[in-house]
């Protein structure tokens, strides 16, 4: 299986229980940090409408879309009910030397 680790940001660039945007080429992602300092990454846009989730609200392991309140479990990408009906794509993440890396495959 191919690995394609991309350096995304400093680990402390994401506040606990929050999300930031990361753009790479013509793609955009969200990087999440939980209160337990675990990091996750998903596609940046909500699957319901093309709204960036980085402006959304993180509640434990849930990201809520800032426009229509659609919710996803960002640890699995699972959509948690209308208007979010299609799962979000997730990406492996690792933290090394204080930096967050995404595996874009």
């Amino acid at each position, binding site marked *: 299986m191919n690995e394609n680790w991309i350096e995304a940001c400093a680990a402390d660039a994401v506040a606990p229980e929050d999300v930031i945007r990361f753009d790479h080429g013509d793609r955009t992602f969200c990087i999440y940090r939980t209160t337990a300092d675990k990091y996750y990454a998903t596609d940046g846009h909500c699957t319901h409408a093309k709204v960036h989730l980085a402006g959304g609200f993180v509640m434990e392991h849930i990201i809520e879309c800032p426009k229509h309140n659609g919710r996803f479990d960002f640890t699995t990408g699972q959509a948690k009910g209308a*208007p979010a009906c299609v799962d979000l794509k997730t990406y492996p993440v690792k933290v090394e030397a204080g930096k967050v890396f995404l595996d874009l495959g």
Partner: protein
Amino acid sequence: MPVEFTPRDYSLVGRDTKLAEERGLASAEWYACPISRQRLKELMQRRDGPALRDTIIWFALLIGSGVLGFLTWGTWWAVPCFLVYGVIYGSTSDSRWHESLHRTAFKTTWMNDALYELASFMVFRESVSWRWSHTRHHTDTIIVGRDPEIAVPRPPNLRTIVLAFFGLKSAPKEFPRMLRHAFLGRLDPGEATFIPKEEQPKVFRNARIYVAIYAAVLGLAIYSGSVLPLMCIGLPTFYGSWLMVVYGLTQHAGLAEDVLDHRLNCRTVYMNRIHRYLYWEMNYHVEHHMFPMVPYHALGKLHQEIKSDMPKPYSSIWNAYCEIVPALLKQHKDPTFFVKRELPQHVKPVPALEPA
């Protein structure tokens, strides 16, 4: 030579739908007042406490007035009881419906969803189709041809506005729609533009449940030879929804269409504590549209954070209606007229668009 006004097409599959898409108004990016991420995070925090307190009071008012109405039925004392019951059932269910639709009322998801299903039934809106309708309303607020919830199209039909206070605008539209969903299992072309295919069976299932409940209540009224069961379920939509319309018209009536700035097409109206309880703080309507993740109990604080970037709020419901009534009367004669909200001098609406 005067330019003749071309009537707008408010359907979701017509000329103005295409026009809105061509002009970049569909699913567009909207202006948001500047606020720090940290402060917004604080305001977005969900809590169960305020909505639990408010919902317990709400149920107490609903059940209390209903029981008193039942006990005093046949006397004049039943009139004030059902006036209160009707307003709680037929009007304040709207704001409960709205806040729980956004899942911001409670922190706990099932509490939002339970209140949403109950309030949807009470306000006579099938819950699944109206969730999607309101989602579109937030995507394309007062964009002609895109927003299914434009309450006052131009030119305004003044007779329809008066009928709305007695539930005679929404119910005659909603009931045939509910019957079509229940018995034919079919959406109209406009609904099909915003309700995804996978959600449609839920619409038909819910419509059948609603129709079955109404049929049971009607059957009970006929069996008992009394209108009392219908006074409790069904008729509040007609005799109790007037306050919902009083509040609802303040939201957008008379303001601009086809702008991507909620400060220009929504009103924030200062209301007293009782109105804010009944309306669940939806008087902060600009704030709600701009930041729908902020729960109702934090909208007042959000208003304080961003008010310097907003038009002057209306000082009262009366103050808002002093603008709305003349504006609608003027629009009746001149459908191109709308109220231009004045932004603070240092800010400009974003983006500034040419009129259609």
